[in-house]
């Protein structure tokens, strides 16, 4: 049974092309996904991300619980409203999911996890939470709209009441505030500034239409994918899964090996690190014409690898990809495209930040 967000009829009224995404009927594009991509890079676009799962955690020992559950350290969260990106690992160090956790009070944290992993995530979180007496409450009553782009914040601010606007103007990156019934976080998945707004389902359609009137362009999952890949952000299920550790998924920066914190998967990660990590995630740029795609074989001096996410990057006008390759791969590799070995450059990502290509891409 395909699930629908509260904005489903709104998307259809906008003539969106709908696709199944992780069991949800979601807009792929409202016309041209490349135009939607450029709207986000140059002005302001918005995405319905209500399929994502909001989970509230309540209890006196919630911080202790998250110290145990997450590979990143919630001890970095000292001020109410502050957010942290982290992986949730299994005992073998494999990635169960990636998520954002918000610190709201010592007895109240909020977590946003992926849609496609909803069932296993909730089961895992509930199982681990029991020992800490933490209550796990899924907030299916909440929708979520991500507004992204250089003009996104100003356009959102223009539709808020003065008191909420003042709070929204003040928050720094990776911080959330509340007002007008909204939970407004300065986070995103595009490499642009903007907000992700958690909104009660009852207010979501009104908010969407108000934002359209304020000049925000609806954008679909197609543009969301090209934007996040240009921005160097992983997609769960494609770039990493339970068979891969953060070391092998370009996510070492999200692992905090802080002293004395016994998080799930830590022993396995330390063991792998000591033994040497044999696979690594790299960025690829193809200067020839064509498009890099998931599953294509990557040929390197140290052996074969594989493209995880690949696409045509509208901001760059050429193809880019994430690939998992043998450690030590140098600046050059080849990709097997329909039997032809096409040269690619191996680069560090992100490829694009704040509307502009990174130097050397």
């Amino acid at each position, binding site marked *: 049974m395909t699930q629908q967000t509260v904005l489903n009829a709104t998307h259809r009224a906008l003539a969106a*092309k709908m696709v199944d995404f992780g069991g949800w009927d979601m807009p*792929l*594009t409202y016309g*041209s*996904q*490349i135009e939607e991509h450029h709207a986000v890079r140059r002005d302001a676009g918005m995405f319905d991300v209500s399929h994502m799962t909001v989970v509230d955690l309540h209890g006196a020992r919630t911080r202790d619980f998250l110290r145990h559950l997450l590979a990143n350290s919630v001890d970095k969260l000292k001020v109410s409203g502050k957010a942290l990106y982290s992986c949730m690992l299994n005992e073998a160090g494999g990635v169960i999911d990636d998520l954002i956790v918000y610190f709201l009070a010592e007895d109240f944290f909020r977590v946003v996890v992926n849609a496609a992993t909803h069932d296993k995530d909730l089961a895992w979180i509930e199982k681990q939470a029991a020992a800490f007496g933490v209550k796990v409450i899924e907030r299916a009553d909440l929708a979520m709209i991500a507004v992204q782009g250089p003009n996104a914040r100003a356009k959102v601010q223009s539709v808020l009441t003065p008191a909420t606007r003042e709070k929204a103007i003040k928050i720094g990156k990776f911080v959330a505030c509340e007002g007008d019934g909204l939970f407004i976080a300065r986070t995103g998945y595009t490499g642009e500034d903007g907000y992700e707004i958690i909104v009660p389902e009852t207010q979501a359609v009104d908010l969407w239409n108000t934002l359209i009137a304020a000049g925000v362009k609806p954008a679909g999952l*197609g543009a969301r994918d*090209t934007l996040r890949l240009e921005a160097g952000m992983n997609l769960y299920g494609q770039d990493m899964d339970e068979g891969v550790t953060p070391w092998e998924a370009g996510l070492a920066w999200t692992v905090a090996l802080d002293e004395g914190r016994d998080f799930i998967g830590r022993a396995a990660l330390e063991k792998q690190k000591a033994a040497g990590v044999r696979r690594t995630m790299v960025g690829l740029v193809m200067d020839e*014409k*064509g*498009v890099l*795609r998931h599953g294509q074989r990557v040929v390197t001096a140290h052996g074969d690898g594989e493209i995880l996410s690949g*696409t*045509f990057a*509208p901001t760059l006008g050429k193809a880019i990809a994430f690939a998992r390759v043998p450690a030590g791969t140098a600046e050059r590799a080849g990709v097997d495209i*329909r039997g032809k070995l096409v040269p690619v450059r191996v680069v560090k990502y992100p490829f694009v930040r704040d509307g502009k290509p990174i130097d050397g891409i």
Partner: protein
Amino acid sequence: MNEIPGDLKFMKSHEWARVEDNGTVTIGISDHAQGLLGDLVYVELPSVGDDVTAGNACAVVESVKAASDVYAPVSGKVVSVNSALADKPETINEDAFGEGWIFVVKPSNLAEDTEELLDPDAYAELIESEEH
């Protein structure tokens, strides 16, 4: 949805073919096909002088979403390719039945090959049935 021009013949795989007054055959992909693919970003053209066989892949169109082979509706020799598509592949999105043509063939077995193709009404029925 664009009107389907009456002088075209179609393959089930969504290529169109038009027999020109000089006997050559112009080939492209249908408006329906470009809609399915989404924004096109790359077209791999055949070379002038290539021999193509009806039903065989001889070009590739790639959108952000997917790569798709273009099959030859008729056999023959490629006499011209739309090289403007190299810089502006989106022309196919904008005008699939006109400026978005892909290549022209001098056919070698026209009468027999075109018998296999669908007329516009039959093609319209096919895409109608695919949508439901």
